[in-house]
């Protein structure tokens, strides 16, 4: 029987949640026995082949590309999990949500104390994904089935959640595995 597939991605995140997934230590050998990886930064596959049993999404949606990737994940993943505070509440990138986008650009590219930009141009190449006005948590863009908070969620939290979902158990995290920091 083919192994169930897992896909992972980091949207507007720092890859810290993926580092935490690698932090499951020797259990990573069990994980390789349990699942195959579809699209993931771990194998550098850029496009979901699908269908996927479990999708793990790190990071919130800060730009149009994040939204497209998230929609692609929703389309192909039977179970979609928001991993980490950025996916759940926008996290650190969402600190810009209290500042108008125009002011963010001005600070980053024109007025910031360390900016050197003699032409005074704000990058607008079409290769650069357009920023959204605000960073959105994933569940405000698509339906999310489970949330694993933490910055990052601990390796134990990720392992417990993954194994529970793969074995068809109810995902009920013990008190010590639900943390927002």
């Amino acid at each position, binding site marked *: 029987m083919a192994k169930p597939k897992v896909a992972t991605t980091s949207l507007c995140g720092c890859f810290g949640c993926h580092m935490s997934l690698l932090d499951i230590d020797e259990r990573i050998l069990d994980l390789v026995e349990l699942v195959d990886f579809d699209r993931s930064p771990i194998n550098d596959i850029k496009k979901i082949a699908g269908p996927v049993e479990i999708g793990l999404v790190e990071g919130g949606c800060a730009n149009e590309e994040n939204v497209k990737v998230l929609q692609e994940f929703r389309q192909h993943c039977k179970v979609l999990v928001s991993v980490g505070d950025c996916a759940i*509440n926008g996290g*650190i990138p969402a600190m810009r949500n209290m500042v108008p986008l125009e002011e963010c650009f001005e600070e980053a590219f024109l007025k910031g104390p360390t900016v050197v930009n003699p032409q005074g141009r704000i990058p607008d190449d079409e290769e650069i994904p357009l920023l959204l006005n605000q960073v959105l948590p994933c569940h*405000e863009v698509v339906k999310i089935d489970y949330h694993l908070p933490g910055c990052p969620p601990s390796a134990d939290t990720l392992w417990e959640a993954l194994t529970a979902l793969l074995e068809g158990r109810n995902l009920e*995290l013990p008190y010590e595995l639900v943390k927002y920091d």
Partner: protein
Amino acid sequence: MCDRISLTIDGRQIEANPGQTILEAAEEAGVYIPRLCWMKGLSAFGSCRLCTVRVNGRPQSACTQPAAPGMIVENDTEELRQLRRSLIDMLFVEGNHFCMFCEKSGDCELQAQAYRLGITAPQYPFMFPQCELDASHPEIFVDRNRCILCGRCVRASQELDGKHVFGFVGRGPDKRVAVNSESGLAGTDVSVDDQAIAACPTGSLLAKRVGYVVPVGRRRFDHEPIGSEIEPASADE
């Protein structure tokens, strides 16, 4: 002395002294009723509604309602857990609670109530309001992003410190905690040792330069839910 009052809470018979609130009587009997704006030593405020219980079928805030003979109180029910969850969710989306870098994380009562309820994500959309931060004082800062308007600093400053450093201004979504000086906290007679600073349940009022002194794993709510100190250990075995 008057006779003790007898009432039931979640089917268990408990006793109260006349004048005691439901919350106090329950606490003495080892029953934890979740609360945020209530604090031992301060007058009851009844604003956060987290301690709402059903008394003879009617919702009442346990921190303000005196215990009365024969009361039938419901506290730990699925319905009330859901209501409390909604309240906590609203507090999270109405402010800017970035737990991942907050000095108070692990020691924060708002976060602890969410942990106790097992909340993994709020059910309402985030509002990302614009809030002011006042760092004018050399030893204390006020971060209104994290303020839940519980009024504990307001009451502690008046009732325990004998000052009037904090007060509410504005109404509805514009309501916020103001300080008793136009030049900000630095212009008030607040001191870092004031009870008002320690009374803050979140990271809204904090002493400067002492953040993160307690390592992760040794903070107040790292291993045991808030309220565990009230509930007898045998209760959950």
